[in-house]
């Protein structure tokens, strides 16, 4: 641990989830999750539906619907559980939502600028060239026309467009930790490839995170460094990318048994 006399930040660059318990109302959903994701690695989180994968994403981002009853989530050594969702975002955490909401009347361009501005120090402005340069690069990766940013945020978007828009925001905001919550659901292969291309373009030593998915499909394009399986609110198995393939061929029955063991 550092103290005020020590100028050197010695915290490990990672997300560390320690014994995390969370519930909705009276119903416990997460029952002691332990995970460590170093910056520079993308980990897949898999498991049957209704076992806590999305809850984990929502708890990390700070959704007030969920109550954390025990445990910690440390981002680069700092516990984020007492922070507002926007503070977590400014710390570098980004959730690609499973169901991105519609905000009518707010253009994507305007929204992106505000979100970028929110990351600036007081008195510092997002310059036009910074914004526009980044935007053009991101749109190119996503094979999207510039006119898209004049549309209202997700309003009337197809499922695929909404997911692509999540990746656009990710590229613009340059988070250090991403959490992708079933980004692959409802996507056709072409859209899936574009989304994967966007994520892969950011991969490197400065990006860590979780890819939550039910299927192997997305992981063909974004190959994870590690794979974890969550059943009944706990991590029951961890392994390399081959674990995802095993789930794909053998289904989830065998892991459910692990949970009972």
């Amino acid at each position: 641990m550092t103290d005020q006399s020590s100028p050197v930040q010695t915290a490990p660059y990672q997300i560390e989830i320690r014994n995390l318990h969370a519930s909705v109302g009276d119903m416990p959903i997460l029952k002691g999750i332990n995970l460590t994701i170093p910056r520079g690695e993308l980990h897949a989180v898999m498991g049957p539906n209704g076992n806590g994968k999305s809850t984990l994403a929502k708890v990390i981002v700070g959704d007030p619907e969920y109550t954390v009853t025990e445990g910690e989530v440390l981002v680069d050594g700092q516990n984020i559980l007492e922070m507002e969702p926007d503070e977590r975002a400014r710390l570098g955490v980004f959730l690609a939502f499973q169901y991105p909401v519609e905000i009518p009347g707010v253009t994507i361009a305007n929204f992106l600028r505000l979100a970028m501005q929110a990351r600036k120090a007081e008195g510092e402005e997002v310059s036009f060239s910074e914004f526009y340069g980044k935007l053009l690069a991101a749109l190119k990766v996503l094979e999207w026309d510039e006119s898209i940013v004049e549309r209202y945020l997700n309003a009337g978007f197809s499922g695929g467009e909404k997911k692509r828009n999540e990746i656009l925001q990710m590229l613009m905001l340059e988070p250090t930790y991403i959490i992708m919550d079933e980004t692959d659901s409802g996507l056709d292969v072409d859209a899936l490839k574009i989304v994967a291309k966007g994520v892969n373009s950011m991969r490197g030593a400065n990006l860590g995170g979780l890819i939550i998915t039910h299927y192997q499909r997305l992981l063909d394009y974004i190959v994870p460094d590690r794979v974890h399986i969550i059943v009944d609110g706990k991590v029951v198995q961890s392994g390399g990318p081959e674990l995802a393939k095993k789930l794909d061929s053998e289904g989830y029955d065998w892991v459910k048994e692990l949970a009972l063991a």
Partner: protein
Amino acid sequence: MTVNPEVNDINNTYEYGWSNPERYAVKAPKGLSREVVEMISRNKDEPQWMLDFRLKALEIFYSKPMPTWGADLSGLNLDEIYYYIKPEGMNARSWDDVPDDVKKTFERLGIPEAERAALAGVGAQYESEMVYHNLKEEWEKLGVVFLSIEDGLKQYPDLFREHFATIVPPEDNKFAAINSAVWSGGSFVYVPKGVKVDIPLQTYFRINAESSGQFERTLIIIDEGAQAHYIEGCTAPAYNSDSFHSGVIEIVVKEGARFRYSTIQNWSHNVYNLVTQRAAVYGHGVMEWVDGNLGSKVTMKYPACYLLEEGARGEVLSIAMAGRGQHQDAGAKIVHFAANTSGSIVSKSISKDSGRSSYRGLVKIYEGARNAKTNVECDALLLDEEARTDTYPYIEIEEKTARVGHEATVSKINDEQILYLQSRGLSEDQAAGLIVRGFIEPIAKELPLEYAVELNRLIELEMEGSVG
């Protein structure tokens, strides 16, 4: 200039609540009387017909009961109001000739700056009189007239008399009657045939004195094929006692002409704002009202388009925001008298705390107005449990071929939207503000950029600390 600290607690986000010491050339005694009406007329050196008109209007005012529909007006004590306050210095054409404290007031409100930057002409009313009125030379050369209403009466007596009180007669309603009796200030605008004034004219209304009434009267004539845009803004100091604003706006849009009248009403929360605005629209003319009601204690205002000849079109875009203690009873009237006339009403309201917003609108289609059509859309956004919204749509159709659509929605800011925006780094207040801005975007985008920015800024100010 002084702040009024005793009222800070009721209205701590209102930034225009300061006032100047009262220094006036003339101040009528409190309350309404024949003597006060005569005094106003005498001060304006009016022709006899106008004095007769005023006195008749006063009788009409006395004979009409207070309206019992709409907002609660029981707190409005008409005997406690000063009906005429004439400031020192009158109707200058240069800001240098406006008395210092008055000039400072308008500088603080950004008016001379806006005039230099983006306006064709500017008028400024302080209490009962216009203290400044100026039109840029290029427009004057084209025959555009932009004067105080008093100068309009003096310099264009025939044109004035031809139209004055023909669109809103004193019999129309009790507040049109009171305005007709004691009117003072306002603008007289004439745009000649075919002239297109492509940057806005603006008049700014400021009440300064406590318990005062402002009764401006505006007459605008847009001749055949001409175009213009007029903007009005209004603020007042925050006092514990109520003030009263009751304007009458009459507009003539002749054949093929196009006119837009935009209001950003930001009265302090002690002002009763009861206004009659109406346009007569002739063949294929287009009238657009863009109406933003943010301030006041009570507003009752229903901008109207009377579509008198074939092909005329009327549009009303209105936005109301009601906070604690405010009631915005706003809406629109579209009346179809002729065939192939069309109308559109888009009304959006935001209510928070104990604020109440009501949409009250009339669509009337007379027999013979073949293929007339109007579409009404009202959307209400509630920011919390205490806020209230109501919709009172009146639709009267005498014509079989008419088409009228009506859609109304009520929504609340939802937690998922807030979380989504927060997860991108915006604070909770910023997130709520952005959602509200998106909600009013269809109206804000119709305003010139500076005014859209101002509207958004005012709403953000009202929104501070309102979520959580």
